[in-house]
């Protein structure tokens, strides 16, 4: 029911809401849970596994029971701010995805600050005040809508709080983020904060953790009945929301804190059941004066009732009640502290794991540091705030603490569980896991809480063990007869659930990843290209004519390249400008073949290996001038090759004078391929004599095109056909491409045709026909490994492993049925291999295509001892059939190389 006065709700602003379709009224300032309690609604959906009645148990992020479906699935009634028209459906453990995309706009902010204070209770506010006054850049984040934390629960220092908030608001360098949860604490004080629609990435010089503490439940028979609630939650509902969850209340506690709840609700409290044989005399005295009976050294053994608690059994006595406020002690909320690599230790004095050693530049204060008296929390907050600011170069005076009465907090006497049926003593309400379940785990030999967690699922539900974790630790300790709790499970982000939509922010759809497009991209789009992604690049894959499927289009493009002329946009190839007097020597040390003596104006195909001798990348290198080379790399490996060059130049050979610049985007490249390539060149670049005698294979020249555009034309071929690569400055790419197409001769082709053409010639694609375990020799490319000079990785070819006869080698495959296409990736076996697992594999298909030139299918494969198998048959067993293929040399077309001169 709603109390007639008090609380921080606005009674002048009624809000209508529904729960399971029934309409209720709450007030501005309510949470959904407090409004439900104000309407007498305590019971929520039954438990997920056993179907037992459950009620609202907590008042914050530690709520195990009160799950609701709103627009978002699985929200907590206790942390949902009430708004007008809210429609909630109670959930048993599981939510439902709506199936609709979240269209809300989410943003990200990256910020730096001097001091980040996490938690806006008394310690956090004190820290922010002390740090903020020095002029330091301070961020104070709190998950609640209103600052104050425990002060709002306990109705204390509210005037001081109001003044402090006003002052913080006015400080120009201090930012207050309410309704914002610090959910992840990563290395070097990188903290992620979740506001409703904004994700904050904060890099803080110092962090003050004032994250408070979570009250623990008590474990006894039928401790899951509706009407059993954490004592601090009861106090919060009454004091902060004027929502009264029960009229006739029993308090069961192991510590001092629940007395505060009892005193605030004095007339409605009949009994305090305290596990301690000698509770502090002052508290007992005060209780008796208020007419509350105190049972010392006693425990609630059982809750009575069916759909709601009707009483409790304490020893031989039965005490009637409609609400039981429980307090099993307090756990400092060390989640973020632990995420930041801070270590905790078990402290007998407070019967909890407390912060021990920090790794990062941080302070941990207040209840999070197991300091439970208000004066102590304020003092720690002020000290840490000022310290943090000073350590970041600011200074100020120690703030004056407000007056608070001296409190002495007496030690608790934890109770882990009671005598009685263990399968009705709940450790984890969300997972319906009981003491009996924990006993099964320890009986099966488990000792570690990590193992018990996985065996019982305790602590794996939506609150990740905020209420159940420590209960389980205590039960385990008692079952094992251990000397107190032995350790916690690992705390991992996020502290509370965070939606994927928030994490994604605006990085969705086309903004998910940067897209790289060549200068000719628009032409490709207008001319119907189908694109494929190569790294971040969009590359034309093939250009279907109306009515054509991919196979038909690719066969047509291939025929054009082999019989007339075809062009491809090759701009995406990585390009590295290499300059310096030692550039030639450097390339000699990096590539398997020699470059130091390459003539200016000439190009050479080169292969790069890692130190282990495995193929890393390949490409054509041009010598532009005595001290200048231009190396191309594969499209996907450009950045890796540049890193690799830099690594060797900087760390191993700093004496070499050589420098690198990525010029990938600076050049647009058009490959003109086919027997009629010269006709195209004669129109586009009429001043260039491109006869075979004058313009030799593997040379290039800098020329002017017909319209005067400067271009570098190279005679290189990745298809075996006569081919020229026209390189122009990126800004001229589109117009030169159009000029080439305007000759009316070429057919545009994409990466698929490029792959077919090169495979027909047995040219490998690094990363497709290789996988980091393949040497040049495995590819049959001994010819490119220089015997005369040293290079990175050369020594590896003398390793016995490089000479194993069963290394996988590159071979060709011709399916016995010329229409059968081997799937790329298909595993290969010998014909006599039985298909009973484990089947010994011979190798796998790396490339496989229909060939227009061969009028059949063909493939490349890596096969163990493959070169010895040439002429033999291998099998590719697929799900529904087996393809037989003959092993061949990995070159299918023009093995004499007669076509490259046209």
């Amino acid at each position, binding site marked *: 029911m709603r109390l007639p006065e008090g609380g921080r709700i606005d009674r002048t602003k009624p809000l209508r809401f529904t729960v399971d379709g029934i309409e209720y009224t709450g007030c501005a300032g309510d949470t959904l849970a407090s409004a439900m309690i104000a309407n007498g609604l305590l019971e929520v959906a039954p438990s997920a596994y056993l179907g037992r009645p459950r009620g609202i148990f907590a008042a914050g992020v530690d709520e195990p029971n009160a799950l609701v479906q709103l627009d978002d699935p699985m929200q907590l009634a206790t942390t949902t701010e009430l708004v007008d028209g809210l429609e909630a459906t109670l959930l048993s453990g599981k939510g439902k995805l709506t199936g609709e995309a979240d269209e809300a706009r989410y943003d990200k902010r990256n910020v730096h600050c001097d001091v980040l204070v996490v938690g806006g209770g008394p310690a956090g506010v004190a820290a922010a005040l002390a740090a903020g006054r020095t002029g330091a850049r301070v961020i104070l984040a709190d998950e609640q809508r209103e600052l104050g934390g425990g002060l709002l629960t306990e109705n204390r220092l509210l005037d001081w709080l109001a003044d402090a908030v006003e002052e913080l608001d006015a400080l120009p360098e201090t930012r207050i983020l309410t309704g914002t949860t610090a959910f992840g604490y*990563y*290395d*070097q*004080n*990188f903290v992620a904060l979740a506001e409703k629609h904004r994700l904050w*990435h904060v*890099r803080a010089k110092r962090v003050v953790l004032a994250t408070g503490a979570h009250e623990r439940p008590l474990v006894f028979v039928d401790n899951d009945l509706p009407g059993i609630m954490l004592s601090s939650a009861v106090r919060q509902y009454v004091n902060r929301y004027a929502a009264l969850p029960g009229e006739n209340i029993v308090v069961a506690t192991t510590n001092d804190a629940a007395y505060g709840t009892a005193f605030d609700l004095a007339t409605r409290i009949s009994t305090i059941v305290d596990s301690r044989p000698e509770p502090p005399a002052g508290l007992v005295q005060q209780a008796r004066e208020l007419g509350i009976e105190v049972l010392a050294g006693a425990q609630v053994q059982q809750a009575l009732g069916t759909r709601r608690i009707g009483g409790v059994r304490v020893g031989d006595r039965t005490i009637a009640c409609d609400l039981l406020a429980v307090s099993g002690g307090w756990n400092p909320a060390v989640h973020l502290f632990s995420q930041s*690599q801070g270590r905790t230790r078990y402290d007998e004095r407070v019967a909890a794991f407390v912060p021990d050693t920090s*790794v990062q530049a941080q302070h941990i204060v207040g209840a999070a540091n197991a300091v439970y008296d208000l004066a102590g929390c304020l003092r720690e907050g002020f000290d840490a705030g000022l310290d943090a600011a000073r350590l970041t170069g600011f200074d100020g005076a120690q703030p004056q603490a407000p007056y608070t009465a001296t409190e002495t907090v007496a030690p608790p006497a934890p109770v882990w569980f009671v005598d009685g049926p263990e399968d009705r003593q709940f450790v984890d309400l969300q997972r319906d896991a009981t003491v009996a379940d924990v006993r099964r785990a320890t009986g099966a030999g488990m000792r570690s809480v990590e193992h018990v967690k996985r065996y019982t699922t305790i602590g794996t539900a939506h609150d990740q063990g905020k209420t159940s974790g420590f209960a389980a630790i205590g039960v385990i300790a008692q079952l094992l007869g251990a000397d107190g709790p032995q350790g916690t499970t690992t705390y991992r982000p996020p502290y509370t659930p965070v939606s994927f939509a928030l994490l994604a922010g605006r990085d969705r759809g086309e903004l998910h990843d940067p897209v790289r497009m060549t200068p000719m991209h628009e032409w490709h789009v207008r001319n119907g290209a189908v694109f494929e992604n190569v790294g971040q690049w969009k590359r034309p894959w093939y250009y279907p004519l109306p009515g054509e499927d991919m196979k038909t289009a690719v066969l047509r493009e291939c025929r054009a390249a082999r019989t007339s002329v075809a062009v491809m946009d090759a701009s995406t190839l990585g390009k590295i400008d290499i300059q310096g007097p030692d550039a030639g020597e450097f390339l000699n040390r990096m590539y398997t073949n020699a470059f130091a003596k390459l003539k200016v104006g000439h190009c050479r195909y080169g292969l790069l290996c890692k*130190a*282990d001798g495995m193929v890393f990348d390949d490409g054509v290198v041009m010598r532009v001038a005595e001290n200048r080379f231009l190396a191309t790399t594969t499209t996907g490996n450009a*950045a890796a090759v*540049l*890193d690799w060059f*830099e*690594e*060797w130049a*900087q*760390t*191993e050979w700093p004496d070499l004078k050589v420098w690198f610049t990525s010029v990938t985007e600076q050049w647009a490249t058009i490959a003109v391929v086919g027997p009629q390539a010269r006709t195209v060149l004669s129109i586009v670049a009429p001043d260039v004599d491109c006869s075979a005698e004058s313009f030799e294979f593997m040379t290039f020249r800098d020329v002017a095109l017909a319209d005067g555009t400067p271009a570098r034309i190279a005679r290189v071929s990745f298809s075996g056909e006569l081919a020229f690569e026209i390189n122009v400055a990126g800004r001229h790419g589109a117009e030169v491409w159009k000029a080439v197409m305007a000759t009316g001769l070429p057919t545009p082709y994409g990466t698929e045709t490029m792959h077919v053409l090169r495979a027909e010639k047995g040219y490998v694609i690094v990363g497709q026909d290789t996988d980091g375990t393949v040497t040049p020799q495995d590819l049959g490319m001994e010819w490119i490994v220089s015997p005369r000079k*040293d290079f*990175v990785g*050369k*020594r*590896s070819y*003398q*390793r*016995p492993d490089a000479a194993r006869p069963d290394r996988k080698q590159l071979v060709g495959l011709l399916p016995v049925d010329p229409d059968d296409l081997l799937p790329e990736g298909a595993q290969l076996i010998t014909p006599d291999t039985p298909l009973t697992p484990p089947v010994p594999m011979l190798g796998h298909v790396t490339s496989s295509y229909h060939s227009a030139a061969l009028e059949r299918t063909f493939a490349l494969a890596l096969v163990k001892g493959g070169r010895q198998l040439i002429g033999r048959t291998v099998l590719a067993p697929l799900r529904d059939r087996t393809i037989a293929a003959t092993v061949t040399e990995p070159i299918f077309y023009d093995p004499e190389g007669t076509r490259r001169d046209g």
Partner: protein
Amino acid sequence: MLLIPCPWCGDRDETEFHYGGQAGVSYPARPADLSDEDWGEYLFVRDNPKGPLAERWSHSAGCRRWFSITRNTATNEIVR
């Protein structure tokens, strides 16, 4: 997300860097003179301590400088 001190650019987020493994493992002056075992040691064997490890990083999305730092693999604390 580590905060890594680049000697040219100062502290930058980890995403700007490329990891280069253990530092101080020099390329042998004359690889051909090494036994298979020693060459294998150079290629494949690295320290894997729980604690401080000298390692190389490259500021690949920034100035491209390669440099060494010492990072505690247990805590990610970085000591230059």
